[in-house]
């Protein structure tokens, strides 16, 4: 047999045995480390899930879309509100007789003074149709 083969054969006899007591102690330590890791893992599971979610490209795109959508919606909503506020409130249409009652005129005077009273009178006259030129609007009352 060649010297190399002989040496390899001798070296192959190098073997180890393990101390059972120490072996068990090491295994116990490893099992203990595994149990501790499991507890820590459970405690961090929610955080881990959140972290993984944040890292996901899809989730990032979805979150960005939602934020942009909310932004657009709020701007649109604000514009709508402005439009509603600026729109004139339709006034209730009343007959000339109703417009010129004592109560209605007094109420108009309280709201806007003589100008408001005149406005109401003009409205009542215009509603009652055309009148001859020689008759002034004050003659109507």
């Amino acid at each position, binding site marked *: 047999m060649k010297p190399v083969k002989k040496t390899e054969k001798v070296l*192959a006899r190098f073997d180890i045995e393990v101390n059972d007591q120490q072996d068990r102690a090491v295994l116990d330590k490893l099992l203990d480390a*595994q149990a501790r890791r499991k507890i820590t893992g459970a405690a961090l599971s929610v955080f881990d899930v959140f972290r993984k979610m944040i890292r996901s490209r899809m989730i990032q795109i979805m979150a960005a879309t939602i934020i942009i959508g909310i932004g657009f919606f709020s701007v649109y909503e604000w514009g709508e509100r402005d439009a509603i506020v600026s729109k004139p409130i339709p006034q209730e249409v009343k007959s000339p007789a109703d417009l010129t009652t004592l109560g209605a005129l007094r109420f108009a005077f309280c709201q806007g003074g003589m100008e408001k009273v005149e406005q109401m009178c003009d409205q009542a006259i215009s509603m009652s149709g055309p009148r001859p030129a020689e008759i002034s609007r004050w003659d109507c009352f």
Partner: protein
Amino acid sequence: MLEDTWLLLRLKRGNPEALRRLYEKYRVYLLRLAAALLADKHMAEDVVHDVFLRLVQSADRLTLSGSLKSYLRTCVVNGVRNKARAAKIRAVVSLEEADIAAADTDGSSQWIILKEESRRIHQALAQLPDEQREVIALHLYGEMKFCEIAGLQEVSIKTIQSRYRYGLEKLRLLLDGEVET
């Protein structure tokens, strides 16, 4: 291989039985390799212990491209190198130092027990230069091919083969009596 994959999957889920099985399957192989790579048995024990501990702690993040056995073997080799570098010790110790190290082998605190013949081989291995010892240990006890060792040590296969040959020659001289028998 298939069994390892299954065991690793179960280990990732924190199964203690999978850990027990992996430990029993690979501890002797890794201890033998570490003991052959390091002159100090205490350090060899530490390295293997650390490798198993890291496996447990990082099991859920572990993704293997090769076999679990080669992964553990590489971990041991890296651990041995780090240990030797950190402690700034010479991996080759004198025969007397090796004797002292071997003397307390039979104590109950020891994990590795070497019999007389194995102890002599261990002492002989300890006298080899680092590169030669690593090649011999990885080839004979790590069951690695020369091309794999060449990749690990980042040298050519020719260099590995010559290191192996010179190492064996030196061991033959050191173990003269045993080789002749």
